[in-house]
């Protein structure tokens, strides 16, 4: 006989493990729609879409309002002491899709997945702009080509910063 292993389950163990496993898998598949990126639900090739991200910064105007200033992903801003600092979108965003600005890229796992990720990326970068005393928020204008249809544009904005 082969050496027994802790992984050799008895009849009851097998049944419980299989029941638990199948319940979890079924739940994850059925609830796929609740997750924008369809995580753990095996939605293969769900879309053939592309996105192109144009990044801007929302900055204050002397009149007390704000304007949106385009950026190519790198910008300079002064801190509270007047020292000029350099910032780049890719300092934190290393994702192979979201790191690309200004050109169409494949929207892996679908447009909803990438917009969800991009919103999180905008919030994350805005949160980590220590030393940027000018940027009030980050804005992404996203051109979307969904499943070969005509393109449309949508705008996402990070949570407001109060530098």
């Amino acid at each position, binding site marked *: 006989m082969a050496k027994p292993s802790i992984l050799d389950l008895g009849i009851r163990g097998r049944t419980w493990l299989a029941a638990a496993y199948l319940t979890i*898998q079924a739940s994850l598949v059925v609830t796929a729609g609740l997750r924008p990126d369809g995580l753990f639900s095996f939605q293969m090739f769900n879309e053939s879409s592309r996105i192109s991200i144009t990044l801007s910064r929302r900055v204050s105007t002397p009149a007390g309002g704000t304007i949106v200033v385009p950026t190519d992903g790198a910008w300079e801003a002064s801190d509270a002491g007047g020292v000029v600092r350099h910032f780049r979108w890719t300092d934190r965003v290393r994702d192979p899709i979201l790191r690309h600005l200004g050109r169409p890229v494949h929207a892996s796992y679908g447009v909803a997945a990438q917009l969800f990720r991009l919103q999180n990326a905008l919030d994350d970068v805005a949160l980590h702009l220590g030393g940027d005393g000018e940027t009030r928020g980050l804005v992404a204008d996203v051109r979307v080509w969904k499943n070969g249809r005509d393109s449309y544009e949508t705008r996402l904005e990070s949570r407001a910063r109060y530098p």
Partner: protein
Amino acid sequence: MTSLVRRWQTEEADTYVVSLVRAILGVLLLLSGLGNWREVTIFRGDLGFADVFHIALLPEALLPGRALFAALLVAQLVLAMLVMVGWCARPAMVATAVVGLYLLSCDRLAYHNNRYALLLFALLLAFAPCDRAFVWRRPAETPVRRQGPLWAARLAQLQMSIIYLASGVSKLLDSDWREGRVIGDRLVRATALAVAKGVPAALMEALANPTLASALAKLAIFTELFLAVGLFLPRTRTFALWWGVMFHLTIEATSQVELFTWLSLTVYALFAAPTLRERAVLYHPARPWGGWLARGVARLDWLARFDIRADAGAASGHDFVIVERDGTRATGLLGVACIARATPVLFPLFVPLRLLAFAFSSRV
């Protein structure tokens, strides 16, 4: 239904094929681990989770620091090698699944269906006695000692079915998919990749035609739903396996799916009957073609389907005779089709050869 469940709970058979699948999963885990390592190195360098944008499913406090993250990536490679060679393979499979699922939970940007599926199959097969053959530097076990329960292997089969069902139903519910928009646009944009892999450009252009794309989309949806069920029915299993192999090879030729093609084809081996050498190749030792064919089958018979014997009398005047599981005998082109049916690397040729053999029937 009760008897089906009872049979699933208690079935025991030779674990040779399950062990082979484990060894190949080890190779796939190693390739996947190396891919992870490469991806992290290229896109992140030596930065930790705190230094880069990520979307964690776990609380931030549970994410690993830089050193632990690197150690876990290395651990995945070591565990994959253990799975591959069969040393402590079953605990290593559990460990690699746990580490892999933990890392996926640390950053959903790193999620890929094929990597997740690979971890699930590793986890499930850890509960099968998959370390009784294909263990490096350990003598092969006797057939009696290779006997073991197959419930976990059956659960892995069911997981394959879940993948097809989830994918097929999600496409069926999506009007863009049903109408062929997704597949049409994908084919248009995959033309360069497919041509680079040897697919004729004219074929890709023809497939992207809206009418044909719509038909292809319906075929793809039907295929996934059929495979979810057809793999389990004895009457459709062989054709479902062949259709599935062609389906995955087509996807591999036209898309980038990392390891999913090879993972699916590996798991397909679990649908082979666990009993070994139920078929026979009887060849005439004095005829060169018979000996050549016997040597070829011996090299390609990775699932140990055939008992290969020189037997001039049984070959009854032919170069070779194939004796099927049910005792049916075939020779000539039909015999070659029977070999292809049970030989992984020749399996894509099985249906074409069988169809050809109908035209030149050669049963004896």
